């Protein structure tokens, strides 16, 4: 695959002022790095994804609150992934030879091990509330989306499409639009999807959004 670009901020998109001022977003990103930087560094290194991108998803999904999400809700924690799909995602990562030894060892330290057939145990609500594990599984999910034919196109990561699918799912109206490759710019896709997902795309990819402002934040 080699080198791919992740362009930011996207033309014509701006982070909604309702999400916070520039300073408040910078402060949030700084706190995320302070609280979870060592976990983010680990998964960024193993997944070959930028730590800025991972931290941006944490910011939008939970604001850095490891306990975010309603009690018992199917999505929980820092990156708000769905625990019912996490098991299949992990087994796919393992089956396709994508899982690094360090990732596998890290999962094992949380009791998530694979049998001879590549199967693992169900992922629980308690698992979702563990910051390091939540970031690891969330980043693996993002990695699988990045490595689809629509997630990376023309040697460029299409983060707008990835955000849309991560937020709204792959197979609803928004997901279908994101995966169609018909929307050539983040602005075009943002205009075509539901308001919640549109705001999400703006928060990460827009001017004064998480990815734009994280350049000014100490990340190590």
């Amino acid at each position, binding site marked *: *695959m*080699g*080198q*791919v*670009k*992740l*362009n*930011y*901020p*996207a*033309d014509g998109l701006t982070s909604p002022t309702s999400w916070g001022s520039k300073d408040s977003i910078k402060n949030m990103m700084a706190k995320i790095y302070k609280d979870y930087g060592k976990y983010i560094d680990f998964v960024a290194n193993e*997944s*070959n*994804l*930028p730590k*800025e*991108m991972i931290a941006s998803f944490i910011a939008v999904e939970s604001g850095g609150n490891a306990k975010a999400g309603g009690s018992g809700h*199917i*999505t929980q924690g820092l990156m*708000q*992934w*769905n625990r019912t*799909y996490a098991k*299949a*995602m992990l*087994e*796919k990562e393992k089956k*396709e030879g*994508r899982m*690094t030894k360090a990732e596998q060892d890290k999962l094992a330290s949380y009791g998530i091990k694979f049998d001879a057939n590549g199967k693992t145990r169900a992922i629980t609500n308690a698992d979702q509330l563990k910051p390091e594990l939540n970031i690891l599984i969330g980043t693996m*999910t993002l*990695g*699988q*989306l*990045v*490595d*689809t*034919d629509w997630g*990376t196109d023309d040697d460029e*990561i299409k983060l707008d499409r990835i955000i849309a*699918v*991560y*937020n*709204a*799912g*792959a*197979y*609803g*109206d*928004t*997901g279908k639009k994101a995966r169609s490759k018909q929307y050539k710019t983040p602005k075009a896709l943002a205009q075509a999807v*539901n308001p919640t997902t549109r705001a999400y795309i703006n928060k990460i990819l827009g001017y004064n959004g998480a990815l*734009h402002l994280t*350049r000014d934040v100490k990340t190590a």
Partner: protein
Amino acid sequence: MNKNVKIILGIGIGVGLIYLGYKYFFKEDTKGATDSSKEPIVYDKKSREVVLVENA
């Protein structure tokens, strides 16, 4: 059946059908319902090198 009751029932059924149609044609998955395990993977994460490029 009283005429007004029929009208109210008709409106109710009509609204219900419109709602069901909307749900069918414009449905979204539930939040966080991304099942990445069903999406074919075509790139190797181990050889991926991402370069952040800040637009001017």
